[in-house]
């Protein structure tokens, strides 16, 4: 056979079309980028465990596949029927299928309207598959995206290596242990067996407008007189008060005592916290005299305790049947006074053009200036606890700190350059006066000055 004949034969083979029956279609890509996520919806405060599919990266086969599908009327990226999520082993053998309760295209379009489908051109870049089935830590998940609702034609899949580390699903643990020489309520000791039990369900009712939760932390002993025996069962409800501003409140009821209920009480708590909108202060509290870029953080807590039974021993005295406390508090940690840089001997003035974004951000916050302050204020109002004069008890408390960057001191800035040179706010002097009360020790009051040098993270 001549070279020309061999060439002709090869050309003929190359140009001969394959029979239809053996036509090769490329296998669907198995590199769908997915991440596990756990977040809290607002204002319901219901926790969500989801798989985020990242489909908006231009230049990837996944993007091109989605781009082709967005115009098809019989395909909708927001419909759960086109997805399957399974638990697999390391060889991708399917162990069980998970329930996808919702598909959420994430984001708003340019008209501020939430996406209800994939628009194309990378919008949305993330689609969340909300999981409705229990997933255990360490289990591997694989996601399949189909061309049809019958799930016959696979479009894309993930690689099956996704693991969920945190989730919103109920947890239960029980850990037995032996406790030699455990103290009993009658003053004696003996070796007992103990079982630590913990239960938590952070979302009792799915898709509820409020978050209902329950938890329990117990220690059950083989001896009912075990002083460590404890049962605490809590149920609660929480939600954001304002729908467009983070403002959570909670109402919680706890039943606590020991396992024989000789010691039994209920604790009812109600709390609220929120940062106030602050941008309106940008001229009043962000100038050459005072710089307070972030708002103070107010909170308010109520706690009512009703003691049903009390086990009185030598170590545990009789307490009042009912206790109530109202505790409003305020914390403000980012206050500074830029004028002090010029007023005092300090010459440090932020550069006109900061070297980096973080330097620019720091230059306009407390940490870059010469004198800073922190403030904490609060009040314990105890209407069921009367003073010697017969009035209802109220205990105010608070502390104030003056903060001076170590680099402000000429000795430090010259002799201790290793702690002041690269980041002048890395170390600071704190002078603090505190007038505090200890709620755990019958609101005992202490007043003290402290002085220290602290390193900042």
């Amino acid at each position, binding site marked *: 056979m001549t070279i020309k004949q061999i060439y002709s034969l090869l050309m003929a083979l190359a140009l001969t079309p394959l029979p239809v029956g053996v036509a090769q279609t490329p296998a669907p890509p198995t590199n769908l980028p997915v991440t596990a996520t756990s*977040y809290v*919806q*607002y204002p319901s405060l219901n926790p*969500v465990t*989801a798989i*985020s599919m*990242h489909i*908006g*990266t*231009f*230049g*990837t*086969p996944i*993007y*091109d596949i989605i*781009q082709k599908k*967005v*115009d098809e009327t019989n395909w909708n990226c927001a419909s759960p029927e086109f997805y399957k999520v399974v638990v697999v082993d390391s060889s991708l053998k399917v162990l069980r299928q998970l329930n996808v309760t919702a598909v959420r295209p*994430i*984001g*708003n*379009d*340019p008209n501020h309207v*939430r996406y209800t489908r994939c*628009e*194309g*051109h*990378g*919008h*949305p*870049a*993330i689609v969340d598959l909300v999981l409705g089935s229990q997933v255990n830590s360490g289990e591997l998940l694989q996601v399949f995206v189909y061309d049809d609702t019958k799930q016959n034609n696979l479009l894309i899949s993930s690689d099956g290596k996704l693991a969920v580390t945190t989730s919103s699903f109920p947890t239960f643990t029980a850990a037995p242990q032996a406790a030699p020489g455990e103290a009993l309520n009658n003053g004696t000791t003996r070796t007992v067996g103990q079982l630590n039990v913990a239960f938590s369900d952070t979302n009792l009712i799915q898709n509820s407008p409020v978050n209902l939760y329950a938890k329990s932390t117990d220690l059950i002993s083989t001896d009912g007189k075990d002083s460590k025996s404890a049962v605490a069962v809590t149920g609660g409800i929480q939600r*954001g008060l304002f729908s*467009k*501003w*983070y403002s959570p409140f909670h109402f919680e009821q706890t039943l606590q005592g020991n396992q024989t209920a000789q010691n039994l009480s209920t604790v009812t708590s109600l709390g609220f916290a*929120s*940062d106030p909108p*602050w*941008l309106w202060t*940008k001229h009043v*509290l*962000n100038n050459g005299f005072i*710089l*307070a*870029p*972030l*708002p103070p*953080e107010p909170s308010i807590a109520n706690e009512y305790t009703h003691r049903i039974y009390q086990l009185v021993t030598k170590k545990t005295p009789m307490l009042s049947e009912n206790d109530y406390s109202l505790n409003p508090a305020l914390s403000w*940690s*980012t206050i500074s006074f830029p004028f002090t840089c010029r007023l005092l001997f300090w010459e440090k003035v932020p550069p006109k053009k*900061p070297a*980096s*974004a*973080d330097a*620019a*951000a*720091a230059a*306009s*916050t407390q940490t870059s200036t010469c004198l800073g302050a922190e403030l904490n204020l609060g009040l314990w109002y105890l209407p069921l606890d009367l003073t010697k004069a017969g009035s209802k008890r109220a205990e105010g408390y608070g502390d104030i700190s003056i903060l001076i960057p170590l680099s402000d001191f000429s000795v430090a800035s010259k002799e201790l350059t290793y702690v002041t040179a690269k980041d002048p706010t890395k170390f600071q002097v704190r002078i603090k006066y505190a007038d505090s009360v200890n709620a755990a020790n019958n609101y005992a009051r202490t007043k003290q000055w402290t002085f220290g040098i602290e390193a900042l993270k």
Partner: protein
Amino acid sequence: MPDISPSDGLTLWFTNLGQLQAACNNTSVSKLDKLTFANTTIVTVLPTTMEQKTFLTSVGVSTGYDDIAIADLTTYKTFKGLLDNWNPLATAIAVLLQSLAATPLQEMSSTDFMNATVTAAFPGGSAGPAWSDALASLKSGIPPKCFTSGFQTTIKTTVDKAATKMSDLISQISVLG
């Protein structure tokens, strides 16, 4: 056809960036220019958990990115890094450039377009009419502080390099400057 035009897609990214800036509820951050803000480390200006949760709630309301977790604020480090995960700037730029590229490249898949040369996409280099249109669209969609004349000169040099791929050009523009 997609409902969001290529130019709207680019504008949306910077609208989102402004929404993130407003959501910080921090008067110092509100005074930063867009480029500085984009490259600021999130937790330095939102140090407490309450400030971070307030930020996430406001971002969810204004942008619709309501599945951001507190851990993401550390994972993605800067505001640009965070936003790029939910709305990649590189995609917005690439979509815009493809819509303005030479006609045969407009119908390409995104993977092929990224592998195409800048010369093929914009014949005539930086002096050609196609790139002039593209540059005008970029300037129209990107705030001046994020697309300075110096940065444009750097981009122009890249456009004039014959072997440059579109992926390289898009990566360079996405950095902003």
